[in-house]
């Protein structure tokens, strides 16, 4: 059976108001948490592979203990195992450090056929972690993958490229970053949700399906992770202002007049935005 690993990350809930700390970092304690939206496409791909050709799917996340929630979510969607890499020394890891730590988890799992990641995250937004893991593991990578066909140990993929798409084919093992134009994550099935609930109540079963590991467990060098292992320097962060506002309805006059008013208003808004961006 194919072994599939999917990297998923817990991020601050984009619909809740996350604050920015005085030092410019995100105040994660105050924000509600959610599964990174881009990773939902990667998870869906993993489940599709499992349901079409049969596979054992392991979700891996790196984060503080509450990140276990996204593993449970992955299992409720049909994944088989979850691994949480959690360690105080990981705090403030940049993409270099994150990819280093995550590639060690792949080594810890052992033989893997397909590694899936999302395109990017909604908090870090660099889209670097997936490709970096591939480089560290010296694996072929297919980025921006939209659709995928598996035959034996080969993967045929359609990638989104500027102005069109590209068909590629490569042998396993490989790493794939899944585009957000791929199939969206499906609905949880009752049976899977019910079984996960039961599993969480059975300590042995829970320990078998969800593991929490430290840097030492995966054989990672702590000096290459966390703040010390992260060369990134954050210059400055600032709040761009509140998103939202109220809906403006153009009505009361003839349609032509209203459309003209709408266009004028849009033009004025874009002037304001340009001013805001360019000072």
């Amino acid at each position: 059976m194919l072994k599939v690993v999917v990297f998923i990350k817990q991020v601050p809930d984009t619909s809740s108001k996350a604050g920015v700390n005085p030092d410019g970092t995100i105040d994660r304690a105050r924000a509600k948490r959610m599964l990174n939206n881009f990773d939902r496409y990667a998870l869906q791909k993993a489940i599709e592979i499992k349901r079409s050709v049969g596979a054992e799917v392991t979700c891996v996340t790196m984060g503080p203990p509450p990140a276990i929630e996204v593993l449970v979510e992955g299992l409720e969607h049909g994944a088989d195992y979850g691994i949480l890499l959690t360690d105080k020394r990981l705090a403030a890891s940049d993409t270099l450090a994150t990819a280093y730590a995550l590639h060690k988890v792949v080594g810890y799992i052992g033989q893997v056929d397909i590694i899936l990641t999302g395109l990017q995250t909604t908090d870090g937004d660099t889209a670097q972690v997936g490709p970096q893991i591939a480089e560290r593991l010296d694996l072929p990578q297919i980025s921006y993958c939209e659709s995928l066909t598996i035959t034996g140990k080969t993967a045929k993929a359609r990638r989104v490229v500027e102005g069109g798409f590209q068909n590629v084919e490569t042998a396993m093992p490989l790493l794939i970053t899944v585009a957000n134009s791929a199939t969206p994550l499906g609905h949880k099935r009752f049976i899977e949700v019910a079984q996960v609930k039961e599993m969480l109540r059975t300590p042995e079963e829970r320990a078998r399906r969800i593991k929490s590991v430290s840097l030492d467990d995966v054989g990672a060098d702590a000096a290459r992770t966390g703040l010390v292992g992260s060369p990134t320097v954050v210059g400055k962060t600032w709040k761009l202002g509140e998103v939202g506002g109220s809906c403006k309805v153009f009505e009361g006059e003839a349609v032509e007049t209203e459309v003209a008013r709408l266009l004028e208003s849009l033009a004025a808004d874009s002037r304001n935005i340009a001013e805001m961006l360019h000072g």
Partner: protein
Amino acid sequence: MKRIEYDVLIVGGGIAGLTAAHRLVDAAKTAGTPLRIAVVEKAKNFGAHVLSGAVSNPRSVKKLFPDYETNGFPLEGKCAESHLTLLGAQRAKDMPFAPPEMNKTGYLILSLSNVCAWMAENLVEKTKDTAVAVDLYNGFAAQDILYSGQRVTGVRVDDTGAPEQDNCYAKITIFADKGLLSRDLIEKFNLAQSNQTYAVGVKEIWETDQDFSGKVWHTLGYPLMDGNFGGGFIYGLKDKKLAIGMVAGLDSENPNLQPPQILQAMKKTPFVQQMLKGGKLARYGASIIPEAGWFAMPKELAVDGAMIAGDAAGTMDIKGFSGVDKAMESAMIAADVAFGALQKNDISKAALAAYQEALLDGWVGQELKASRYYRHAFHENKALFSDYLPVVLKGLDKGCMMSGGVKAFFSGPGGLISGGLNLLKLMGGGGSGELRLPEDRTCPKPKHNAVPLAEPEGFAKNSVYLTPDMVFYAHTHYHHGNDHIKEFDAAVCKKCIARFEAGNNPPPCVGDCTADVHSVLAKDGAKSHQMALENCVQCRTCEIVCPEKNIRVNPALHGSGPDFRGL
């Protein structure tokens, strides 16, 4: 594959369902016995499909959570000031004599959706490190009832096609679904007594400039002047929020009620305008209210393996608008009986029937029985309101309610006195015999001629909304491929449209929908019934008023629907 089975399965995580779950957890914890409970709720999040007033007698909340004032139970406030207000297009005045059931001083002011969200969260906390398991399935709608012979064995909650994957089984199923699925149970076992009389309630939450917390108004009059049952409510919530709503009986002859617009009309009155000044609309929603009470309760509230609680069992009491406390009490009794039955290993109808006995012998039954003619009193005495109320209100708008009252009296003293006496007698519990209520769907008249109302002057245009704009504030979201309302026969709709349009009215589904879902499409000279299901707030009004029983609102799947949180 092992089938998924619980001791108790609760269908519907509203106030009754979650009350039953809490009570069961408490009972099992006290007895120290393991218990497995499941709650299935069609909304994505608990509370997101729950809409109520709500001002409630604290008795049931106190019984379930004796420490509700300190345990984090979300209260919006306590009523410190209660008004029954006569609303005219220009002026408003408190009624000089209000029936005692409308005095809400000391009652709890709640956002029932917030209460349900809290109760679900708290339920999980409560069971940590105990032998009691509560599995919450929000986002899963119960679609069919499962039977083994005459015994209910659970519900189907998924549609992969494999029964062992789709079904949730239980020894006892408690239906607290406001009738959405349990109506099938009532039909199968022929449990209905009389028809139900429904009202539809539309409600908005406003963030305002002023603090109205602890204040409660119930209004009569404008814009419901045609004798139909209904009225407005305005509740001051904490954090400068205001709940404002309108309830209108669906036993109306008017096929074009436009419930959201009745609420807008009420908002246009100067009395409401001064409250909304500087505020903004935060949320909108709608829900139905089963108002008939005693005579419309199912004959039996339990069958083999199942029980019915809350609005599904018709416990809502229109006298004093007592729905929340009665739904909770019924759920607590149902839970107690279910727990006892499981302990004795007897889940037969005979064992579960103790629930009905206890409910009807207790205060819920006594109060419902005493008010059994209350709602009907208004149906029977429509003329009292349509003939005299406008005259009284005209007097009020001119500045003197007395003059209006006197005028009304002399305009037809006989009718007023006899009608009034009849109304008071029925409201007070007088009357005799079984009531057989008409089906609401038989009430709308194609030729109904609604009298246009003079609009209040000087209202702020941006404080009222067109129905398509209001829907935006219900935050509805549907999954791809959703088709939760079923139309049975397009030809029947065509005839219905022709019949109502001949009377210059839209068909009732179009006229009474709370979210601009239904419409009549004219194309190539033919007219047909259309639905924009992505707007639907799942109130079920359209199904109730459809004269031909030609549509059915089914539970929407995958957590689809409105988001009523905060309402």
